[in-house]
């Protein structure tokens, strides 16, 4: 047990946790996106409501969702621990610093981007997850199939300019966070080789653009066409 604690007490072990939880959250994004695309089916939300019911009642999904909550919390906690240690590693700052000449903005701003993404997640959970699971102020009606009509709530949320703007800002932060985080997670795991690192970087860039763009298409679609 001592060796186990020692790994995660070390800087490399904490980086490993960031990498593994990050990759799990990336895989979740894919599943979440595929399911959410049902919002585009032209059936007045029947497919979307059925998907929401499946996600909240399926035992396997429920089990994985606890792993998801744990990953988000762990990713945030370890990030706070690492960031504060990193800050204290340079108590006296440079008076003149040209960091843009040696590194990308997003790679230096992962903490800020992470805070924005977390704020976005909390807002998103409050908007839908909380209402659906714990019965917030919103009164759900039932659709033709007898499922609670969360589709109507989606339409309501994204019809407001605040709803649209806050989601677009959140997804922009997600784009930058993924742009650095995706390939960085593999580097931390020690996966770096001339054969496949260029492919990982390209796939990471494509993923960081496509996934937030697809998510963004939903509030934009609702705001302008519904």
């Amino acid at each position, binding site marked *: 047990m001592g060796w186990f604690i020692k790994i995660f007490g070390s*800087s490399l072990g904490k*980086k490993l946790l960031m990498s593994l939880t990050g990759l799990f959250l990336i895989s979740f994004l894919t599943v979440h996106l595929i399911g959410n695309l049902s919002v585009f089916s032209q059936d007045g939300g029947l497919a979307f409501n059925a998907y929401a019911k499946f996600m909240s009642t399926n035992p396997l999904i429920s089990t994985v969702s606890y792993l998801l909550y744990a990953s988000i919390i762990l990713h945030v906690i370890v990030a706070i621990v690492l960031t504060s*240690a990193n800050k204290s590693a*340079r*108590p*006296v700052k440079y008076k*003149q610093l040209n960091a843009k*000449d040696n*590194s990308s903005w997003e790679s230096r701003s992962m903490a800020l981007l992470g805070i924005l993404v977390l704020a976005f997640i909390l807002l998103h959970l409050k908007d839908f997850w909380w209402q659906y699971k714990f019965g917030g102020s919103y009164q759900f009606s039932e659709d033709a199939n007898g499922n609670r009509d969360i589709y109507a709530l989606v339409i309501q949320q994204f019809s407001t300019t605040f709803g649209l703007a806050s989601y677009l800002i959140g997804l922009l932060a997600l784009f930058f966070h993924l742009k650095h985080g995706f390939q960085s997670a593999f580097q*931390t795991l020690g996966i770096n080789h001339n054969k496949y690192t260029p492919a990982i970087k390209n796939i990471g860039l494509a993923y960081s653009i496509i996934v937030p763009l697809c998510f963004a298409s939903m509030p934009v679609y609702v705001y302008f066409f519904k």
Partner: protein
Amino acid sequence: MEKVRNYTLKIWRQPNAQSKGEFKTYEVKNISTGSSFLEMLDILNEEISEAGEDPVHFDHDCREGICGMCSLFINGRPHGPEEEITVCQLHMRTFPNNTTITIEPWRAKAFPVIKDLIVDRSAFDRIIQSGGFVSVNTGSVPDGNAIPIPKQNADLAMDAAACIGCGACVAACKNASAMLFVSAKVSQLALLPQGQVERKKRALAMVDQMDKEGFGSCTNTGACEAECPKGIDLSNIARMNREYFTASLTS
């Protein structure tokens, strides 16, 4: 191109480790474009000494880019604006006439300032002492080709061994992380047969010492790789991670 140039220098002056330190401004005139950055500082120090004041203290030794002693943070970047060179190899023709040049020491908790621009880099020595060596008896000099080493590994080990331990990676990193340095030292031995016996022990001990010294951790910004005067690349950090995780799980 003019043969001589004039500069305004903003230099960090700090009498000792305890004092606070501040920038002082100096003017240097008629500096040859062919002189190195350190020679320019030598000229400045001559003038300061003749005026009976304390010259600017900075580290230097070989002045041919191989010792790793020079350590100046010039205009916001370690070793100045040029790629893959140390300060001693930086020439004044790089800096336009009549400009201001800011010179600071490396900034890191693990590299405390001793005086002016000189920092204490003995944290690197202690990391090497914790495992960056081969202590088993490897015998006398073997016959040529008696120990088979793949050419690729020999090259990678040599690339890693090019690290001169100057600390530019720490200076450049936003987290003051020493991972490029430590990974180069772990890699050069992990890639060669002589390093195998202590391979796991070495990775664990050196990372452990690195954490104890108060360096930050890596966020893969790549600033270290971009600023390294010897072109040590990030694949070394990935190798160190593999070495450390494997050693943790199997030793």
